[in-house]
């Protein structure tokens, strides 16, 4: 028997299955919490920080990632306060500066209301979301790739940098990577990056209702959990 708990997300009383995350509960209910590193069938590690929410306890609120926060009886969550929107916009801005060459990330930036990028573009090809590492570890049990190094040297690699024979070459790591779909106009060259923003027309509805899921077309691009459910 599934056990349920009652949580309050943005004023809505939601009956959620015990053991699920606040993010999953919100998405299922149709509340939009932008997220990048979360993949519904993989364990969450809270890498991208986009899914932050305010968790109100005794009148004080903590900002925390909703994908790693499990639902509890009587929980009060706010997903769309000014503070959260501002923090989230900044996080999305940093992500798009790190990796402008991803349609998924350009889409997320737009959904999070990024209008200009104030940080220098780095044009890296990885945002360390750990999707590839988790799919290889958890689904295929191959452990052919993982995080190597730490701090600013942290990156994804094979053991000793060489593809091991136990890599099943399943290609799943590539499939889940948000970096594999380039922006519509093709890859941007270093020094010529920009905030894409072309899909803005799609956002007419989304802009007015930032807190509901509007099944935005963008969600397909960044593989929003709602499309996978």
């Amino acid at each position, binding site marked *: 028997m599934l056990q349920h708990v009652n949580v309050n997300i943005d004023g809505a009383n939601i009956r959620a299955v015990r053991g699920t995350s606040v993010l999953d509960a919100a998405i299922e209910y149709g509340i939009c919490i932008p997220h990048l590193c979360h993949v519904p069938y993989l364990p969450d590690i809270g890498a991208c920080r986009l899914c932050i929410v305010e968790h109100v306890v005794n009148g004080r609120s903590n900002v925390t990632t909703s994908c790693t926060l499990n639902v509890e009886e009587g929980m009060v969550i706010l997903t769309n306060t000014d503070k959260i929107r501002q923090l989230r916009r900044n996080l999305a801005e940093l992500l798009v500066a790190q990796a402008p060459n991803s349609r998924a990330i350009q889409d997320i930036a737009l959904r999070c209301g990024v209008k200009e990028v104030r940080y220098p573009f780095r044009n890296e090809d990885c945002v360390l979301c750990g999707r590839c590492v988790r799919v290889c570890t958890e689904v295929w049990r191959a*452990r052919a790739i*993982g*995080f*190597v190094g*730490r701090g600013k040297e942290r990156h994804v690699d094979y053991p*000793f940098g060489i593809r091991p024979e136990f890599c099943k070459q399943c290609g799943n790591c590539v499939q889940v990577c948000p970096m594999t779909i380039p922006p519509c106009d093709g890859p941007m060259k270093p020094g010529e990056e920009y905030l894409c923003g072309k899909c803005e027309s799609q956002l007419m509805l989304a802009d007015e209702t930032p807190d509901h899921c509007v099944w935005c077309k963008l969600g397909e691009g960044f593989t929003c959990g709602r499309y996978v459910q």
Partner: protein
Amino acid sequence: MPSQTLEQILEGRRSQPNQLIEVLQDIQANYGYISEEAMQVVSKGLGVPVMEVYRVASFYTAFRLKPSGKNVLTMCMGTACHVRGARLLLDQATGQLGVKPREVTPDGLFSIDHVNCLGACALGPIVTENGTYHHHMTPGKLRKLIGTLSHQAVEGK
């Protein structure tokens, strides 16, 4: 010369994944670095996936994945040493020796390392040379130190 072989280090710890860090520390202490082969042996011996061994070994700066030079210069880059000019010391060393941090000079005599705090902040900036602490370092003193060390090596001491 290593006082313990890999086999001896693994003795009594086989199939105990929780011993990973201790085993890596012993290998580091005995060999001065952790080679790819050693990581493969550890992975089999402890039953830890090789990716996991490599991830852990590459994470901690206490583990070196390549042999170090005869003389190891360790610059403290901690906050206290940083504000007292540790950057200048690092620039002095890398410039004089022509190698980047965590690399070895072609003659195998020197390698440069940096750490985040040696716990002697009041005496900063600190540079250690093969474990000996040199306090209140300046680029000038460091230049002389490197000079003396390479001299000693040339004279075969």
